[in-house]
């Protein structure tokens, strides 16, 4: 009996439960990495080709074929053969029957009756070269944003003697590993802002089971690294707000922003946040010395905004021939087209997973349920921010304001990147798919439960906070497993 009690006490330790969450998340990620067929992720063939391109010898001793603009335009999006990828990618895609998956949602690859695909032996024989012969090669990291792909080259080069299947899936598992670190950082954020261990663990598990995060971060893509760096930046910001500026949290924020810039341009948002954080730091320093410092907050905020605008102006469509009125009209047209229920709904649906693959009443209505919960959470957040009531079991206001700022910054960043494209082409081809907002997943979940907690506390029903957390965890787990076993597997294998 004593022994059972000892084991049970051990099982209740937060560090043990956190380890369980991380292992379960990792195994789920590895399973999903296997469940998604080769090259089927978002732009995955292009990302993998980028890694192969960086792994190539610098001196190109092989024959190069330069594609004409007509050839580039004639590419068929359903056929990877027509893209400027390495011979190994193109031939592997054909051998693995990848084009069948790109026709209609009900078509699968031509399966064999064994554990090996019909052309698997041919793929494993390594008869195709992992080098780009068709130029310009189709790669993603054309500027300085190549950190993820450079890290991928270590795996590509280390396992160069193995089949493309080994290298490709190991890089997918590397993405899963990065995402497991994101889950760990999310837990640290929750602990640092003052949530109890149990609440932190439940919210961490909720993040670990978010379907889109689970699916998207098993792909070969810079997204898993970007999401990790957004989360480490958030952790740095929280540590700064908690402990004041020291070299550790400053290094965490600066390193995250810099590495983020070397990963994907979206991380420019972190630079903007860093400028505002410095402005806040200066304000805090002055406010300790003088009571009149509050008068400086406005000018400091304006100064920070001007600095950000100067930094960003090259990305914005500000050179309008009609002057300021032209800019306002363009912005108005963009907002009128994008801030619609339909567009916001599309972002929401793609934020939670591949909800449109099946005819399911549950999936058709789940966004409505999520929106309802979020509406209550927003009401709770308003109470939390504007009432004088103390919420002992919730984080301090400064942390919540910071997390809201992170969300506003990313929203603005994504829309300010989308607007120039709209201004130039008149179309919303770039769009705002839900996956773009995943870098703030930890902040979203914290804000939702803080809002719900505040709402319960306002009505003196604090005990419902734990009930909401548990219900959230159970529903998210069911949602995630349903998506994996009844949607993803159904789509690709049945």
């Amino acid at each position, binding site marked *: 009996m004593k022994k059972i009690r000892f084991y049970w006490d051990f099982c209740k330790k937060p560090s043990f439960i956190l380890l369980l969450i991380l292992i379960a998340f990792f195994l789920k990620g590895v399973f999903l990495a296997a469940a998604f067929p080769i090259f089927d992720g978002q732009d995955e063939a292009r990302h993998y080709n980028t890694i192969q391109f960086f792994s190539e010898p610098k001196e190109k001793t092989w024959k190069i074929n330069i594609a004409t603009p007509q050839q580039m335009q004639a590419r068929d999006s359903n056929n990877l053969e027509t893209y400027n990828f390495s011979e190994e990618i193109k031939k592997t895609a054909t051998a693995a029957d990848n084009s069948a998956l790109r*026709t209609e949602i009900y078509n699968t690859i031509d399966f064999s009756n064994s554990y090996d*695909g019909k052309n698997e032996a041919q793929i494993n024989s390594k008869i195709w070269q992992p080098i780009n012969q068709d130029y310009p090669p189709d790669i993603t990291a054309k500027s300085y944003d190549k950190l993820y792909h450079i890290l991928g080259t270590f795996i590509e080069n280390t396992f160069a003697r193995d089949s493309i299947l080994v290298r490709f899936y190991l890089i997918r598992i590397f993405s899963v590993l990065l995402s497991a670190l994101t889950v760990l950082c999310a837990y640290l954020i929750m602990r640092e802002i003052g949530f109890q261990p149990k609440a932190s663990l439940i919210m961490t598990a909720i993040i670990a089971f978010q379907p889109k995060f689970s699916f998207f971060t098993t792909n070969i893509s810079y997204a898993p690294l970007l999401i990790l760096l957004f989360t480490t930046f958030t952790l740095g910001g929280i540590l700064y707000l908690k402990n004041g500026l020291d070299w550790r949290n400053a290094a965490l924020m600066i390193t995250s922003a810099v590495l983020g810039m070397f990963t994907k341009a979206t991380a420019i948002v972190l630079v903007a946040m860093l400028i505002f954080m410095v402005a806040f730091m200066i304000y805090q320093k002055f406010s300790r010395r003088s009571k009149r410092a509050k008068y400086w907050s406005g000018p400091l905020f304006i100064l920070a905004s001007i600095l950000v605008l100067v930094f960003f102006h090259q990305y914005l469509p500000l050179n309008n021939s009609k002057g300021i009125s032209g800019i306002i009209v363009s912005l108005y047209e963009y907002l009128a087209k994008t801030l619609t229920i339909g567009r916001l709904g599309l972002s929401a649906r793609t934020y939670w997973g591949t909800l449109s693959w099946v005819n399911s009443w549950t999936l058709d209505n789940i966004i409505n349920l999520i929106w309802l919960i979020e509406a209550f959470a927003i009401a709770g957040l308003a109470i939390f921010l504007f009432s004088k009531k103390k919420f002992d079991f919730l984080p301090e206001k400064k942390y919540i304001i910071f997390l809201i700022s992170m969300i506003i910054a990313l929203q603005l960043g994504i829309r300010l990147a989308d607007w120039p494209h709209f201004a130039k082409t008149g179309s919303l081809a770039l769009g705002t798919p839900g996956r773009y907002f995943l870098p703030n997943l930890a902040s979203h979940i914290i804000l939702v439960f803080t809002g719900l907690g505040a709402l319960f506390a306002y009505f003196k029903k604090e005990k419902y906070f734990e009930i909401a957390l548990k219900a959230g965890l159970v529903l998210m787990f069911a949602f995630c497993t349903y998506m994996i076993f009844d949607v993803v597997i*159904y789509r690709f294998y049945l």
Partner: protein
Amino acid sequence: MLNFLKKNIYIIIIFLLTAFVFGKFIFSLNFPDAGYLLSTDKDFVLKVAPKNSVSQKFSSARDGLTKIDFLLRNFETSSGDQVLMKLADENCSKILAEGNIEKSFLSAGSLYEFSFPRINNSANETFCLIATFEPKKKTKAVEFFLKNDSQDGFLINNSSAQQSLSMRPVYTNTYWWQNLRELDQRLSQYKPWFLKQYYLAAIAILFVALSIATIVILIII
């Protein structure tokens, strides 16, 4: 009893939801013949007028025929219109199964299915599919997508036109664990050795078991 339910409500819910998810998963394990590639070309459709029928012979590659998938254009079962399906022997005379079509679980607007009890000895047998359009409203015709060739040499209505219905047979095994093994086979194809067969099955089982264990601990503590 009420106290027990109240105390363990989350544990009960998690097990019920898990049973729902995996129950649905196990029951959905039917395997379309992957050799058939379905396609929708709007120029290749066969219009079948009310009360008229179309027949299509096909051969079954293996035992356990349980469903036929096929493509219809602009058809809605919600309007009350129905397509009565009959599965018959090679001579289109002895009816083996009949029923109405249903929309597929996959949200492909044109994919429909005709399900029937598993036919044990269907391997290498030729079957005849007869579809009759039974409209409830004044719908003029139901449109079947066609393909310009035939997978197994059979043509629509035994006609000389080189066309056949855009359809595919779907199979299931005798036991659920055989279905799981076949799914494991499909999942293992074009994967490296560490994501194949037993390794893959072990990863899946461990991930589900660990996830449930973690959630149960989080609920109990």
